[in-house]
């Protein structure tokens, strides 16, 4: 595993950076928030991204994708993460897309992956419940056998883009363990979807299932495969999130550095004060470690390495702490104005916390690392 970008990869990263600079400044996110946008992202921009091939990066050309890998995907997500772009990568491309792509269910893959690659569908996977904290196996939504199909009851929280998803993957407990059911949002009876408002503006929803009748055609993958699909999809989304976090921490730090150089106090730029310098140096180091961690996790996924779970946990543990450090210190460096909504640094503080507490916090992933290492 070589930790270096190829020329093609550097080109992808540059393209994404240019795109973000031009089309997706943080001001766009602020505007979506301020006008209380019902969708929370831009469908038009999502189509444009699809035009660049981004939602399809991971998927085979036969299904409308680019046939590349996570090494490329994380470059795009890192750039998008710099300005907290809210388009539905995590939900559609990673959570749902990866569950579909790994299910072996040709019919469903053909039905949905081309739409995902084209930016024409939003999908999601409802991996969280109220009592479950970060344990993916803590699924209390039930799927009781009901004729040839199942009857689903339960509630899912903070389902990413659940409020605009065309279809939702719902993990539920069957007699044979966790299974995933793909339910179309518009036509499924007994499904109630309520938009939730999170501090970081990322679109999430409460999803209630009351006597939902899920026909046999809705179950994804072979019986018994649901649990693995769920874990694998969340691990992959987690790496995507880490890439976003990496972009966000770099941007928060860039804002901070600019401020440290410009802002004068006591007759000198505050960046000349040694205590702040040393703290800035520490942030720099942590970001460098996060870069390596994200790169390694992405490459491990592409190589189908047995180290995948450990490197995913490493990336999430480091990026959680790294982004929080960059954001907390950023606000402190900015001082009073950093506390105002008018300045951008607060957006990173909010995203830092939301990202930390998604797909397991740092302590959760340290514990997982230890378990994987056998201690």
């Amino acid at each position, binding site marked *: 595993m070589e930790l270096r970008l190829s020329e093609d990869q550097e080109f992808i990263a540059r393209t994404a950076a240019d795109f973000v600079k031009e089309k997706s400044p943080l001001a766009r996110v602020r505007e979506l928030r301020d006008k209380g946008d019902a969708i929370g992202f831009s469908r038009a921009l999502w189509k444009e991204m699809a035009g660049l091939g981004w939602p399809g990066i991971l998927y085979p050309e036969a299904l409308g994708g680019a046939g590349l890998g996570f090494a490329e995907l994380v470059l795009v997500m890192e750039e998008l993460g710099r300005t907290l772009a809210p388009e539905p990568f995590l939900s559609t491309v990673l959570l749902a897309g990866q569950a579909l792509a790994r299910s072996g269910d040709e019919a469903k893959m053909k039905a949905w992956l081309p739409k995902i690659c084209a930016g024409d569908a939003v999908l999601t996977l409802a991996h*969280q419940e*109220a009592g479950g*904290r*970060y344990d993916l196996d803590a699924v209390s939504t039930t799927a009781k056998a009901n004729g040839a199909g199942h009857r689903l009851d339960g509630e899912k*929280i*903070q389902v990413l883009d659940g409020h605009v998803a065309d279809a939702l993957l719902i993990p539920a407990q069957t007699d044979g363990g966790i299974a995933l059911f793909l339910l179309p949002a518009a036509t499924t009876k007994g499904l109630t979807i*309520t*938009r*939730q*408002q*999170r*501090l*970081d*503006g990322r679109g999430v929803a*409460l999803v209630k299932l009351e006597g939902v009748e899920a026909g046999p055609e809705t179950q994804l993958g072979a019986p018994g495969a649901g649990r693995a699909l769920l874990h694998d999809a969340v691990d992959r989304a987690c790496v995507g999130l880490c890439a976003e976090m990496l972009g966000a921490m770099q941007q928060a730090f860039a804002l901070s550095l600019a401020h440290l150089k410009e*802002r004068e*106090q*006591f*007759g000198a730029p505050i960046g000349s*004060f040694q*205590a*702040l310098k040393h703290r800035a140096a520490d942030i720099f180091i942590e970001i460098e470690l996060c870069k390596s961690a994200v790169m390694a996790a992405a490459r491990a996924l592409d190589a189908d390495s047995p180290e995948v779970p450990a490197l995913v946990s490493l990336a999430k543990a480091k990026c959680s702490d790294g982004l929080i450090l960059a954001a*907390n210190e950023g*606000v*402190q460096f900015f*001082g*009073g*104005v*950093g*506390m*105002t*909504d*008018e300045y951008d640094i*607060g957006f990173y*503080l*909010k995203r830092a*916390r*939301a990202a930390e*507490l*998604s797909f397991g*916090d740092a*302590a959760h992933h340290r*514990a997982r690392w230890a378990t994987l290492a056998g201690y």
Partner: protein
Amino acid sequence: MSEASPRKTSDETGFREATRVWLLENCPPSLQGKSQVAIWGGRKWRPENPDERVWLERAASKGFSAPMWPVAYGGGGLSKAQNKVLLSLLRELRIPLPLVGFGLTMIGPTLLQYGTEAQKREHLTRIARGEVLWCQGYSEPGAGSDLAGLQCRAEEDGDEYIINGSKIWTSNADAADWIFCLVRTDPDAPKHEGITFLLMDMDQPGVTVRPIKLISGSSPFCETFFNDARALKANVVHKVNAGWTVAKALLGHERSMIADAFGVGGTGGTKRVSLAERARRYLPSDKSGRLGDPVLRDAIAQSEINARAFALTVQRSKDGMRAGHNPGPESSMFKVYGTELNMARHELMVRIAGPQALGWEGAGFEADELALTRDWLRTRGNSIEGGTSEVQRNVIAKRVLGLPD
């Protein structure tokens, strides 16, 4: 003023009994048991419950709105001991303070120390009667920690000053009637020596106020702009260009208030939900009743131990002061540790609540979860406001430890 003025009662028990009777008779029943009500007063004040005005007026007549101020300036002339009795009765009967605000706690004490006789008669009396609500104009958008680097300037014009510039973090400026502020009167002098402490009526066309939205949502803070605003020279406190002296005295009041607030917080003096109780809501316990997440349990214990050690330190300092030791620059320690403790505690509460700490409003979050999100965001300002942690550490290093510049 009542005939049987309690001030004349020679012993404390007599004072306590007389005051208890007076309070029960004079505080409107709708406010008894409502100690959480904050009575701000001021020209723009329109209390929801009109009894609040009744209570303020009666208490002011009695001298209880500013109990320890001299009677000549509208105060109650109470001794320290009597004031303590009064406060304990208010707490006991859960009767609200007749008046709160910066007039009472900040500019009032400053005028008592530095004001002219005319200023005391005019302003203190109006403060004590709750007629004027004050705000503070110290910080400026450009100045930050370097308070003395302020730019807002005041130029002479006959018996007035003309003021131009702006102030930030002027709490409650949108409700206030008067502002006490620092202005630059000599731009050529060294920065600490060209500053004047000035009082200004805000009800004039040259003053505009814009509320500040924080990352945690709306706030009492405002930005206040002066565009050819005017103030009489008679409203200069202490001497022209000697405002820094007054400012430092006033900052002392502020810091000890903040330290106090965090000190009390640390002891759990205000009833708060314990971290462990919060944790039980989100985490399973093991068979022996321990929190099921031992890593969080360790972090909770660390937070509580630090809070207790801090509370003990605040107590030790107070016990020392009662014995006549002066509070020195080590009070910067209370600011920096108290605030950072509070910040760390909130970060921990967020970690405990997990995804439920991410709500902004609406469905799927309990009210106290939504409050936690905002509270946590708000605490990030603790290490900035009232003198940053960096400034406090500088003060400790220089003035307590004697480290060189």
